[in-house]
């Protein structure tokens, strides 16, 4: 077991080890330690750190560095991530690769400083204008987060897509023992702009959107086929299957263990990629399952939609009910999940779908 380390610091150091050449950002709680750490660390290694005047500017700096073929990164939370959406859409459109860390905090507008998962829809649907997706990684622990950092860049580069690294305020702020990954020295991408016009481009008014749409769909299909990641347990004989990601996902595993000990046939699916959504995990579920239950840290229930859609696809001969236990913010306790489960099996909680 490695040393105790704070989530945001561990993630920042993992990004350094994954070969990040440029970080640009603007402070916002609870993501700020990432940029504070990198402000010292990157220059130490002869790499670039920029405190930008805004989130808008910082993501555009990332776009520039990424266009030149280097691993580049920004991080933010809440309204800061909203400001980046215009450029994330442009980066996606240009098929560049970069990683955006969202240390999710709760709330609309300015929001709050509570840990949350309320940005699920925005991140998994491609939050800017247009018609694109980002690969979204949602770790449950500091160890998983650092282990996912190099893959976050690998995936972005493999598919020339934006990877959203969606963590939660609490994960950024907590401390856990963690083994750090090794340093890697990534190569500059072959498709980079390098000043010699080695990769031909066409003007925006000469584009064939029909052809591009076909290529985009193909890319999305490929990602869905090859990149789903999840953890699941005890779903084969389960009457009820919990679905939760990130810290709630971790907490739900504890609840499942206790409920099993109490004689309830329950299992869990913990998406690690929240896009592509791990549909394959559902194929292993007991065909006679009585229901799915999403547990999520938001007010209105978001993940529950994907659970219901996937349930419909996998168990299509009958309408399996899908419940939602939204804890609004923070991390749901075992008690919260178990009490919610009790209300569901007693018929006290109406299903969402």
């Amino acid at each position, binding site marked *: 077991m490695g040393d105790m380390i704070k989530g945001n610091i561990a993630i920042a150091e993992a990004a350094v080890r994954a070969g990040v050449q440029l970080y640009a950002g603007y402070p916002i709680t609870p993501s700020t330690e990432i940029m504070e750490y990198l402000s010292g660390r990157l220059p130490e290694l002869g790499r670039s750190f920029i405190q930008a005047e*805004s989130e808008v500017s910082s993501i*555009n700096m990332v776009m520039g560095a990424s266009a030149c073929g280097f691993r580049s990164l920004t991080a933010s939370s809440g309204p800061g991530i909203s400001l980046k959406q215009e450029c994330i859409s442009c980066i996606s459109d240009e098929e560049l690769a970069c990683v955006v860390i969202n240390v999710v905090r709760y709330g609309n507008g300015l929001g709050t400083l509570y840990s949350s998962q309320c940005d699920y829809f925005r991140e998994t649907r491609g939050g800017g204008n247009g018609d694109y997706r980002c690969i979204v990684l949602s770790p449950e622990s500091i160890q998983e987060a650092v282990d996912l950092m190099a893959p976050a860049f690998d995936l972005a580069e493999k598919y020339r897509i934006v990877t959203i690294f969606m963590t939660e305020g609490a994960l950024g702020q907590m401390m856990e023992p963690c083994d750090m990954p090794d340093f890697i020295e990534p190569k500059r991408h072959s498709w980079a702009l390098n*000043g010699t016009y080695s990769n031909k481009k066409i003007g925006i*008014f000469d584009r064939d959107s029909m052809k591009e749409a076909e290529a985009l769909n193909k890319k999305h299909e490929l990602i869905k086929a090859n990149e789903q990641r999840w953890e699941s347990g005890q779903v084969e004989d389960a009457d009820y299957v919990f679905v939760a990601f990130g810290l709630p996902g971790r907490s739900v595993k504890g609840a499942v263990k206790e409920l099993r000990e109490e004689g309830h046939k329950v299992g869990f699916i913990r998406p690690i990629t929240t896009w592509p959504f791990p549909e394959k995990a559902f194929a292993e579920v007991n065909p006679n399952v009585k229901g799915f239950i999403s547990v999520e840290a938001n007010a209105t229930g978001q993940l529950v939609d994907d659970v219901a859609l996937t349930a419909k696809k996998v168990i299509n001969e009958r309408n399996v009910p899908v419940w939602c236990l939204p804890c609004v913010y923070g991390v749901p306790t075992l008690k919260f999940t178990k009490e919610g489960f009790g209300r569901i099996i007693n018929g006290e909680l109406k299903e969402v779908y």
Partner: protein
Amino acid sequence: MAKERIVPVMSDNPMSFCPGCGHGIVIRLITECLEELNQLDNIIFPIGVGCSSLLGGGLVADRIHCPHGRAASVATGMKRVTPETTIVAYQGDGDAYNIGISETLNAAYRNENITVVTINNSNFGMTGGQMSWTSMPKQKTTTSPKGRDCELTGQPFRFPEMVADQFNIAYSARGSVTSPKNVNKLKRYIKNGIQAQLNGEGYSVIEALSPCPTNWGLNALKAMERVEEELVPFYPLGVFKEREENKNA
């Protein structure tokens, strides 16, 4: 005898600017300067949104179309990871000074080692001639149909002077495309801007006053006259921040 002017291959393509537009002249000057400075194989253009976008169709060079107004930030990211590559941001006045004023100003504030060329045609050309922060008092545009009311909309402002005065930048100048003499001067300004970047002196900005006959409702000749008669008195031509090496020359 008139000398034949050979346009660098990089910009020798049709780019569908309107007849009498200044954009084409400025991009040709930039590529001529790059050629003279041996940078034709070492240049990336972050391009703004506006009629600048038309460069995308014809410029034979590494380029990227930036979100509206953000080219100076994109340029910053490029320059930080590849300091050996020449980066010239190419933007209209709406792009650089309206929606993008924050990014444009902050690149100057940091004295980022990039070159920014802005085409000031006193309106939003691409979208059909709306008012810009650089529109003149009383100028009729599609969003100031009775003439720009500066009491309500603010005054036009002079970006190159502003950053020359306030920030520790390398070079700032304004030229125009209205006569062979002015074109030659503008070329000198652009070359100085790029040279400053090559030497690592820091931020350079060159604004080019440029006609937009289509949206001004004037023919090409009359549009050139308007630049001279209405714009130049408010937007003086010249160098506002001189490079150290020129000071001693």
